[in-house]
């Protein structure tokens, strides 16, 4: 019985130590912040700068991004807003922000009733695994948003130039 109990203890201790090590590694990675990187706080500041103190509600906006991105240098992005796009009710602007690129703003699209359909596609850069936020400003002055979490395996923006 004695040796068995010993094995169990060691194994338990081993697992505890290993788990702790992995946890510490994970934390270390999480705490590694690029010096020039935008943070959720700077994203919030950029959002405030772009739209003021307006209240943003989730809904109406659909942000399409692949959930897993192999190369952050070109990430296809499609933004669609549920709107009839008439003179009385249309999308004025769509802002797209990110958390961890060196700059929090990605792009702002200006639309109008002549757009016909509030749907735009482009390709963006993502420097890290992060969430991307889209905010649409409608002609009635309301703001709607959508957010997508993206896992990035090869980061963009800061690699060495050839």
């Amino acid at each position: 019985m004695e040796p068995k109990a010993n094995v169990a203890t060691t194994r338990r201790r081993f697992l505890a130590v290993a788990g702790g090590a992995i946890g510490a590694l994970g934390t270390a990675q999480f705490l590694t912040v690029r010096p020039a990187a935008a943070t959720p706080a700077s994203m919030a500041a950029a959002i405030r700068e772009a739209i003021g103190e307006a209240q943003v509600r989730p809904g109406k906006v659909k942000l399409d991004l692949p959930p897993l991105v192999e190369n952050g240098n070109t990430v296809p992005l499609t933004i669609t807003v549920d709107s009839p796009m008439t003179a009385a009710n249309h999308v004025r602007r769509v802002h797209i922000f990110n958390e961890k690129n060196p700059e929090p703003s990605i792009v702002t699209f200006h639309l109008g009733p002549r757009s016909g359909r509030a749907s735009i596609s482009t390709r963006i850069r993502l420097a890290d695994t992060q969430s991307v936020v889209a905010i649409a400003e409608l002609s009635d002055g309301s703001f709607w948003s959508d957010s997508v979490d993206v896992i990035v395996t090869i980061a963009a923006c800061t690699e060495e130039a050839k």
Partner: protein
Amino acid sequence: MARVLINVPAKAARGHVIEIKTLISHPMETGYRPDHTGKLVPRDIINRFVCAYNGTEVFRADLHPAIAANPFISFYTVATESGVLTFTWTGDDGKSFVEKANITVA
């Protein structure tokens, strides 16, 4: 002159919504990349894209360095009348690239 690709339907029915696809060859240098000597490559991006339909602006985009190289933008507009669509890309240095496409609306 940068190389430009534009996809606009040659013909459209009046009032129909048409899709426009645009792409311009440009490095969109972010200003955050070091070169082999460790110095940062200065920023050089296209920061504005405008589409005008017979002179009236129908779509505009303010771009930041987070837009991928060779910026691709696709969007929609209503085919209102026959005429010319003018696409203008403006860079950080203030230089513009202009491209036009004709559309016949019946």
